[in-house]
């Protein structure tokens, strides 16, 4: 027994309403829902019952959670790499600023040179760490806004 176009449309609407936006994943899940529903319907269940069974089996935490898990898996390595780079840049910028002060105070560097070194550190901080920090802040506020 195969599901008809109307039933297929109900599955697609469900996935769309759940917020699944990845087209490839949506195709996968639509087919998977179809297979499970057809399996249940072969056992004599009505489409509605079969659909709820399929939903509980395939997406007990919601279909969007599958997309979130997918996005996490696909981006986790890149995110870790970006964080590593930003932390290293943050360390070097802080180190440079501290170094400029530490060398200026005992008179090893004159005011101009230590000023230049400190400025280099601040520049590094402002072009690497600050944009990342504000990007994370922005993402967090968008997430909080959506959750609300």
């Amino acid at each position, binding site marked *: 027994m195969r599901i008809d176009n109307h039933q297929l449309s109900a599955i697609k609407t469900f996935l769309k309403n759940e917020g699944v936006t990845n087209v490839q994943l949506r195709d996968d899940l639509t087919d998977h829902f*179809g297979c*499970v529903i057809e399996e249940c319907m072969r056992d004599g269940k009505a489409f509605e019952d079969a659909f709820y069974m399929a939903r509980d089996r395939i997406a007990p935490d919601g279909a969007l959670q599958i997309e979130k898990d*997918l996005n996490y898996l696909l981006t986790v390595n890149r995110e870790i790499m970006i964080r590593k780079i930003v932390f290293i840049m943050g360390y070097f910028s802080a180190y440079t600023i501290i170094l400029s002060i530490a060398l200026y105070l005992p008179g090893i560097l004159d005011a101009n040179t230590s000023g230049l070194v400190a400025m280099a550190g601040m520049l590094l901080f402002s072009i690497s760490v600050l944009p990342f920090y504000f990007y994370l802040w922005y993402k967090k506020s968008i997430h909080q806004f959506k959750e609300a």
Partner: protein
Amino acid sequence: MYICTMYSRELLKGILKPIILKLLSENDKMYGYEIVQTVKHISDNKILIKEGSLYPALHSLTKEGYLTVESRMMGNRIRKYYSLTDNGKTQLSPVIQELTDFSQTLDKLFNLKTALS
């Protein structure tokens, strides 16, 4: 989430991708539902792959270049068949070897424990 099973979930973390690679090496191409059913059947219902883990793993393997996808119309809907790429076939051998070796080591370890006790 990973895999729902008679075995502890912790035991089976990390073997989903090797399972997929191994299955696809023995079957030319498979779709998601087929993979779940095949694993369930072969493992005598001891390993039930959760769909919430399967598709992220399939898409991740595809992005890493180990799998390729072919879409076909099956009746009124699209079915996506996954198959191993040459890169995936190359990857398979060390992955299986590592798991087999790990299994043998565990076997040795627990046999030793038994012998000592």
